[in-house]
């Protein structure tokens, strides 16, 4: 379309105004509220004993959920794209379940399986592995909600690159494993990297499912997002400031993962 200047500028204006009001203003506001009393105050909010415990809990949860879902993601993408086995289509549809189900419902369903009166809850509790009201439940919830991201990023990349290189490797005598490790994996690097970034961001920010299965004990089962929620209820203006500081901390953590992954993978064309 040859866009006449009137159209071009009005579209641009509307888009910019929309983004300014919806996206930029709140983000700038968060930044201002985090540092409005100075960097050292914000830092003190991030380094209280409870905040440090929450940080490590969030890191632990992500450190388990992300690798698990990445391995699942790559493996399942391979199955979905490269194999001809029947049942692929069902698997494909089922993978989208975490996108459709509300996190609160996910938390509830975990209670129904692993809770005190759950399907397998008593079995685990009797063996000294309580799940609900413990970090293990929070990990399970996070794995559930962040499950599809890696698959959905890797599968299209696998489709696009085709199988020529892999077939070439096979004719040269490479084993399946060698082909996967030396040919396939490097070529899907971008997809895996983006998958990891999305999975991590989702895992770090998860609050709905985790709120339902957590016992909300500071120092044990309070992750960073739960700490934000907790801090919004603390009397006195310091509570809200501390909540903002923790929110910014979470955003920075996601950003760090993004930067790390950007190093490992070539850029993908976006605009």
């Amino acid at each position, binding site marked *: 379309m040859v*866009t006449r200047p009137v159209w071009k500028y009005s*579209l641009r204006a509307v888009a910019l105004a929309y983004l300014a009001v919806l996206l930029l203003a709140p983000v700038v506001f968060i930044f201002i509220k985090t540092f409005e009393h100075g960097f050292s105050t914000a830092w003190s909010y991030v380094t209280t004993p409870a905040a440090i415990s929450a940080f490590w809990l969030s890191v632990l949860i992500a450190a388990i959920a992300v690798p698990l879902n990445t391995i699942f993601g790559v493996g399942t993408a391979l199955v979905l794209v490269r194999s001809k086995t029947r049942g692929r289509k069902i698997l494909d549809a089922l993978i989208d379940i975490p996108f459709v189900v509300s996190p609160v419902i996910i938390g509830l369903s975990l209670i129904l399986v692993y809770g005190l009166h759950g399907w397998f809850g008593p079995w685990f509790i009797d063996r000294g592995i309580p799940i609900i009201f413990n970090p293990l439940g929070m990990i399970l919830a996070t794995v559930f909600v962040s499950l599809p991201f890696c698959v959905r990023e890797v599968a299209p990349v696998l489709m696009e690159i085709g199988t020529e290189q892999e077939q070439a490797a096979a004719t040269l005598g490479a084993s399946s494993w060698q082909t996967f490790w030396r040919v396939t994996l490097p070529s899907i690097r971008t997809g895996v990297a983006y998958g990891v970034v999305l999975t991590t961001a989702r895992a770090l920010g998860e609050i709905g499912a985790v709120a339902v299965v957590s016992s909300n004990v500071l120092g044990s089962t309070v992750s960073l997002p739960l700490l934000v929620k907790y801090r919004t209820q603390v009397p006195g203006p310091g509570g809200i400031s501390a909540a903002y500081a923790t929110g910014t901390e979470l955003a920075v953590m996601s950003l760090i993962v993004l930067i790390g992954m950007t190093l490992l993978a070539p850029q993908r064309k976006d605009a």
Partner: protein
Amino acid sequence: MSPPPPADSVAAPLGVPSPGRPSRVRSGSRLGGAGGLGLGLSTLYLSVIVLLPVAALISVALGSGLHAFWSSFTNTTALKALEQTLAISAIVAAIGSVMGTLVAWVLVRDQFPGKRILNAVIDLPFALPTIVASLALLGLYGTGSPVGIDIALTKTIVAVALLFVTLPFAVRSVQPVLLELDQDVEEAAASLGASNAMTFRRIVLPALRPAILSGTALSFARCMGEYGSIVLLAAAKIQLASLVIFADVESATGSGNSAYQPAAGLSVALLVIALVVLFGLRKWGSDSGN
């Protein structure tokens, strides 16, 4: 930052080429027998993590009899919550996809200083914890707002929060398709005298429709279940389904799983509605993609 799951993840079932991805698929059975094993392992993982809890949910929802199941989502509070959730999700998904398409258009077809930074910023709602987003919106546009607006306790601020959270879906589902779109057809239409509006309606929009619908579907599903960004915003009179379910879970009386039957019943109802709408949108998208 990075785009959300690509357009074809929800809209196009596997095997249907989606417009955004030129496919050079050689569906070789490269994996052979390992494919079966891989399928088995994937299914096992998926079953333990996802299917087992969902099965428990359905079982408890129905386990106290059909009458109890029916009343768990037809009682006054639940019905009101479902209505409000459906309405607000539909409105937000619709507005979000219109504005998302517009933003994607500007990002792809326009050039201005700072465009690259703006493009990266689109993904910020993914990095930001949802609860912080709602905190900011409340501070910015609620009581005591520095810009003098007060939409706290209204449906508007809930809608704004949901628009924020679904912005990346709406934009990123359309953007790649727009990028790949061949402008020759548009230029031909223009040279034949078609107006901008006609070109857009007859040529561009149909090409974008599957992607737009897939983005709308994702946004809609997200809105139906959203919790973190609305937990601080909800007032007495605006009850959204996820909040009602949360309250039901917290106030479950009785012992055993059946105590959660009301919450489970409402959850299943919510899920069914979301799936029906999603399926409908998906079908619409793949129909128009043929």
